[in-house]
Structure formats: C-alpha cells, structure tokens
C-alpha cells in the first residue's frame, strides 16, 4: 500500500561542476509521468511531453541553479498508461555547453535514458559521461518496485562513454 502523502520518487541529480538534473518519477503511485531537465545557470525547466502535467521550480545558487520538480498533488489520480512513450527534457545551456536527455517510459516503468545532446569538448564531455552512469543506476532501480537505489562501481564507464557517443552520433544525423 502506497501512502497518499508520499511525494513519489523525488529525484534530483545535483551534479558537481555546475551540472544539475531534476527528475520526478512517481514510482508506483499510479501516475505515469516524468520530467527530466538538465542544466544550470538561469535556464528554466520546461514542461515535458508527457501524459500528465508537472509543476517545476528552479532555485538559484551562487554556483548555478538547481532544478527540482515534483509531481502535482493529484498525482495518484492521473490516468495510467500502458504505452511506450519518450519524454524529452528541454535542451538547456549551462556554462560548459548544452545537454538534453530523454527518458523512455514503458507504461509506468522507465526503461531507458538517452542523451540527445551533450557537450563534446574534453572537460564538459567528462562531466556528462560521469553523470550518465548515475542516471543508468537510477533507471535500474526504477525497473523494480522493490529496489530503491543501486550501488555500483563505474567499472564499465567506457561502455557508457560509447553509448553517449552513439547517442550523440544519432542526434547529429
């Protein structure tokens, strides 16, 4: 039984080095929406192309801005969905470049995360690559009703780096 007072899954990737990612996944709470935004600086979080609405807030700090989002209070009343959909975050600029990710949702389950745009120069690309394994771990956790989070060494960081590149290649075709 899921308590109605629960916020759902309130997940913020507060990245170091000016990268921040805010996502909300109302995991197991009957809702089928997700918001992903990546960025820092004064960029705003835009509404995703999703089956339900989300509210979002953005808070500035001296080191950039942290985007955090949360589901609407009536999240549990959203209609369930069984189709596969892709939810794109806004392409947002931060001091090191522009990054955009996309979540693939199968029904209520997040089945994949894709990078649509990421910086390509050394330092910024490194930051983006380091963020991806974290997102992948969250995707793994989101596939199970029982697993909350995933611990793992970034042993296969090269594979993640390749997948970023593949996504980049695709995005530039």
């Amino acid at each position, binding site marked *: 039984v899921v308590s109605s007072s629960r916020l759902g899954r309130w997940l913020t990737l*507060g990245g170091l080095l000016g990268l921040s990612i805010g996502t909300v996944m109302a995991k197991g709470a009957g809702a089928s929406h997700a918001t992903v935004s990546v960025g820092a600086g004064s960029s705003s979080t835009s509404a995703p192309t999703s089956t339900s609405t989300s509210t979002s807030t953005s808070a500035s700090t001296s080191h950039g801005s942290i985007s955090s989002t949360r589901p609407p209070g009536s999240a549990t009343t959203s209609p369930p969905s069984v189709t596969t959909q892709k939810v794109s975050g806004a392409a947002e600029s931060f001091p090191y470049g522009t990054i955009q990710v996309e979540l693939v949702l199968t029904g209520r389950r997040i089945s994949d995360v894709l990078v649509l745009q990421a910086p390509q120069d050394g330092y910024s690309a490194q930051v983006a690559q380091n963020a991806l394994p*974290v997102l992948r771990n969250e995707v793994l956790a989101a596939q199970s009703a029982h697993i909350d989070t995933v*611990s793992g060494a970034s042993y296969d960081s090269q594979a993640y780096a390749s997948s970023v590149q593949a996504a980049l290649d695709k995005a530039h075709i």
Partner: protein
Amino acid sequence: MGTAVSFDIRGVQDQTSATSALDRAVRWLHHVDETFSTFKSDSELMRVQRGDIRRDCWSVEMSEVIELAADVEEQTHGAYQLRWRPDGAPDPTGVVKGWAADRASLILTAGGARAHAVNAAGDVRLAGRPGPHRVWSTGIAHPHRAGVLVAVVDGTDIGIASSGSAEQGRHIVDSRSGLPAAGVASATVVGPSLARADGYATAAVSRGADARELLERLDEAGWPSLLVTDNGEVWASAGFPGQVYPDGIPPESA
C-alpha cells in the same frame, strides 16, 4: 573530478523546508568540488599538492578529509594510500565523494528531510525509512553484466560503497607493486560511514587477488563486504547483510 549525485527524498511533510535542505545539500557538494577538484588548478587541493599552502593554513574540510584518509590507510595497513603520488603529496580523492555524501545526508536530516538516499555516482548513503514498515533496498550492480544485480542489501542509516579497478578513468594502483591493480572487478563495503566504506572498497581493489584477506579483517571490525573477481567469482564476507545472487538477477525480479 566531476560527478553526479542523486537525491531520493521520501515522506516529506513540509515541502518548503525539504526543498531548502536539498538546496543546501547541493550547495555543499559544489563547495566540496571547488575545494577538492583536481581539474581546477586553483582549488585548495591542487594548491596543497603544489605545496602552496602550509599545513596550519588548510581549511577545516581539508584537514578533516586528509586525517580521515590517513586513518583509512592505517586501518587497511597501507592498502589504501594517501600519498601514492611520486611527489609524495596527499591525494584524498578516494574518500572525498563518500565523505561529501555523508555530510549531505546530515544536512538533509537537519533540514527535516529525514528519509533519503544520497547516491554519489554509485556510492550510497541511506537514512530514515522510505515507507512504512520497510527500510531501503539497495541493489548492487553486477560488474560483468550490464543491467543485472549481484546482490540486494536491505537497511538504513548506513553507507554502501562500491569500487572497481577502473573508477572514473583513474586506475587504482597496487601500493606494493606500483602497477595497476588486477583481480577485483568490484568490491562493495557496507558500514556506518560512507567515507570509510569508500576508502575500504578502494583498498580492496588495490589488493587485487589478496583482497579477501583484507575484507575478512574489515568484516570483523564491523565493515562487511561483497567481492566480485575479474573471473566472475562472487564472495560475501561473514557479516554481509544482503541477499547474494552469484548468477545475477534482473532488478524487476529482485
């Protein structure tokens, strides 16, 4: 080194104060990055490594982290090395990430967001309860099989750190030979401090084929662990508090 940290906060009563605590935790991480970045030539750590700052002028954070790293070195009989660099300068980066997440967790708790998981690039700090009648379930990623878990640990108010031989591009070196460590695909250490668990997991990787001896000793000291070798053997210490799946299990079946 730049990395990403995720926060999963549950059971929030007061969203305004929780958001404010989260903002403070994220600002803290940015501060840690400014202080300990090895990418920014003017970070305090880079200045310490160049010998530009006298020891009695180090920040409180720098002193605390370097003391912690020195203690981890002592506890692991030198398997973790604070001064592995050829110039003998201290490099506490093996414990900074866990230490920063420990502190971020305290900031959240102090701000009223008591039930949370802080995941610092695969090193996890857990606090409170994610729901009624349950604690946090943490999957341990299988180092050889993408998208598969090798264990699940149920618990709270603990840190769970995993290290591999090629962590974020910097190869862990066996302090005895000076050569890149081999033999351990992934070492996971569980305990009351994520900073120390992080250091102990790194130490296990650096010990390579002899990691088990070190981990057995750490288990007796209250730091249980899980080891996956390069050739796929899975070993858990006597006190490992989780369910182990040597063949791996997809998360949806866990």
